[in-house]
């Protein structure tokens, strides 16, 4: 792997060229491809885990996606009681969707006209995986991890999200015990929409807090 290459930004600060933000050469990848197989086979042979355990885990991963999060957000937009419960105790509130949080607590943070929330895990890649699926590559990148906490507005701009100066940014640093979900602002012109209609406006990125929810293209037919 390449060593850190030194570059300077416009302020003369050293920039680190993070090596894990790029793809890897084939030889190295092959080693780890085989390592995963080797570990699985050894653990099954030794009776530590069963083949069925691995299959179950793979199926569980496949069953998780941002659609879960979109349903939660849509219900919070449509149902004030649920929203109140969700903001008070996310872990408890999502039980009605039959979504487990495994080891962690869920904290839901609401965007308003005064505050914009954004989620990062500076230490690694903690993320509400049971609600959003696996985190995107950029979320796990060292660039996002390092910069989000000291220049969130600049990072948001690179996502095309240009916040007004009078909107404060709150950055939430996730950890193994605490996972965050952003409740984005409900788009204008969606009064009376059903939960499934609203859910279509809720992107993964809006629940991480790097973009707003999708604006409705047209009014739905009534």
């Amino acid at each position: 792997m390449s060593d850190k290459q030194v570059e300077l930004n416009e302020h003369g600060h050293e920039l680190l060229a993070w090596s894990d933000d790029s793809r890897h050469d084939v030889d190295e990848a092959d080693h780890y491809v085989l390592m995963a197989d080797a570990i699985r086979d050894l653990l099954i042979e030794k009776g530590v885990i069963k083949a069925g355990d691995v299959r179950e885990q793979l199926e569980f991963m496949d069953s998780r996606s941002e659609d879960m999060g979109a349903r939660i957000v849509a219900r919070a937009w449509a149902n004030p009681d649920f929203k109140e419960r969700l903001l008070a105790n996310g872990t408890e509130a999502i039980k009605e969707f039959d979504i487990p949080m495994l080891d962690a607590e869920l904290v839901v943070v609401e965007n308003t006209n005064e505050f914009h929330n954004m989620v990062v895990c500076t230490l690694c890649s903690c993320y509400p995986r049971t609600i959003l699926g696996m985190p995107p590559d950029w979320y796990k990148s060292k660039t996002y991890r390092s910069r989000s906490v000291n220049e969130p507005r600049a990072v948001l701009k690179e996502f095309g999200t240009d916040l007004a100066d009078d909107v404060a940014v709150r950055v939430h640093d996730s950890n193994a015990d605490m996972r965050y979900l952003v409740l984005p602002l409900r788009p204008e012109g969606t009064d009376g929409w059903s939960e499934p209609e609203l859910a279509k406006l809720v992107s993964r990125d809006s629940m991480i807090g790097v973009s707003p929810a999708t604006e409705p293209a047209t009014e739905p037919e009534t």
Partner: protein
Amino acid sequence: MVGVHDIGGLPAGPMIIEDHEMEPWFKLLNAIAGAMRSRGHTTIHEMRRCLESLPQGVYDRGYAERWSEAVCDLLEEKGLLTKAEVLERIAEMRAAGGGGAS
């Protein structure tokens, strides 16, 4: 002490906003780690400590690569397998012309 993982606030270049489908071998590794947790052999906190204890050079190999190394370290620490066994098995697979993530 600041560990290899503690990078919040450090300067870095522009965001590379990309995402790829998870590679099958890394998905398998995640499933193995999940199975270890659900069987009660390991905890997420032990996994985190192993990730955070990796030498800089290993940590910088990449996200999936560092997870692989950390899983291996944790399993060895638990006495469930050794790194030597894993490397030996990899060599056997290579000798047999094996594929991977099957």
